[in-house]
């Protein structure tokens, strides 16, 4: 019967077409998958390249303050036997709180020649101001250190700490604060205006991160992290380290 033959032909044709369509879908899936994987790899590499480029841009023209210690990444105050490392961001409220709590104690420990404090001004909160205040203030503190007034300027910065989310202190104010602690020469003002030590601030931040410091304040007494960051906690840790 021709009707049956026609029906069989139609059925065979449909089966073949379905198989062809299936084959085509498989091919499309294969190629889109390969394309997508390649795209993701390329995009990841772009990110890597961009970050590396940004890093080299930010650390280009690196000027390391000659007074810096610890591979040029910190400023030392005092000369006592117990080493205190303090990693701070001038924008960070918890650092401001720590300074308010412990500064007097630190001053006394330094005056009694019990401790050497190494301040590492890092910039991890550039997002918290609209003007990258973390980097600018850390750079200004380096200029102050170069002028021999790090400890004084460091205090002035925390005493005038801007609100998170604000524009931070502008360069003119940073220079004014310098004047208030005796940094009246043009070298300080020029360094702030020119951003001489901004690349250095980035490098200090990077060095701190490589050491596992990712929050501020990080306080280490004799190389050990200080958990209780109160005046009493600090005193106890210094005594333990000195004993």
């Amino acid at each position, binding site marked *: 019967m021709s009707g049956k033959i026609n029906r069989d032909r139609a059925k065979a044709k449909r089966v073949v077409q379905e198989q062809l*369509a299936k084959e*085509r*879908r498989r091919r*499309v*899936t294969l190629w*889109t*998958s390969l*394309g*997508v*994987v390649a*795209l*993701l790899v390329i*995009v*990841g*590499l*772009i*990110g*890597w390249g*961009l*970050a*590396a480029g*940004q*890093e080299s841009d*930010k650390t280009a023209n690196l000027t390391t303050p000659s007074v810096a210690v610890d591979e040029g990444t910190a400023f030392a105050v005092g000369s006592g036997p117990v080493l205190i490392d303090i990693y701070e961001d001038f924008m*960070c*409220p*918890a650092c401001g*709180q*720590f300074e308010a709590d412990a500064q007097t104690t630190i001053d006394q420990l330094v005056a009694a020649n019990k401790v050497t404090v190494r301040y590492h001004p890092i910039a*991890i909160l*550039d*997002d918290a101001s609209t003007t990258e205040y973390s980097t600018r203030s850390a750079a200004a503190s380096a200029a102050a250190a170069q002028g021999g007034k790090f400890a004084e300027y460091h205090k002035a910065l925390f005493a005038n700490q801007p609100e998170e989310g604000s524009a931070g202190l502008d360069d003119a104010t940073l220079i004014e604060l310098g004047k208030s602690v005796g940094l009246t020469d043009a070298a300080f003002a020029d360094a702030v205006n020119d951003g001489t030590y901004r690349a250095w601030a*980035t490098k200090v*931040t*990077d060095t701190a*991160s*490589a050491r*596992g410091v*990712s*929050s*501020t304040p990080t306080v280490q007494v004799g190389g050990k992290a200080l958990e209780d*960051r109160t005046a009493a906690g600090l005193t106890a840790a210094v005594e333990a380290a000195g004993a």
Partner: protein
Amino acid sequence: METGQSARTTTGWLWISTAARLGLATVWLVAGGLKVGDLAASGRAVNAYRVFPYEVAKVIGAAQPFLEIALGLLLLVGLAVRLCAGISAGLLVIFIAGIVSAWVRDLQIDCGCFSTGGELGAGQSPQYLFDIARDVGFLVLAGILLWRPRTRFAIDNVLMGEE
């Protein structure tokens, strides 16, 4: 021939999957977009987990926002949905594992999921449970797409021909 019931179910899943696809796309676009502006900070956020050496963490932190945005765009247009859902699920499992490991090790960090994260200051407590629950929610979206990758308004439909 499909019965009316199963046709309705298929249509229902089509829309559920479409919603899941667009939801997951939004998640990746937002997550990547918030990190892409500061790649150095993104690297520091990865480093805060203290799983990788800093140099490796920097590379991961730099690549991750771009991967997230790319995945978000692919899901948005609906290209290779099942594959993207699979990769999304893999990433989310890694993120959840990372958060759990930070929790277990008692690290005081922000997960850096929708920010450039890092360690938390004094007086801030981590929200690991919330972070994990949220990521599990996203994992469910990815799971739906892995299971039923057919969606409306997807480039896949054009490439494959409507089934």
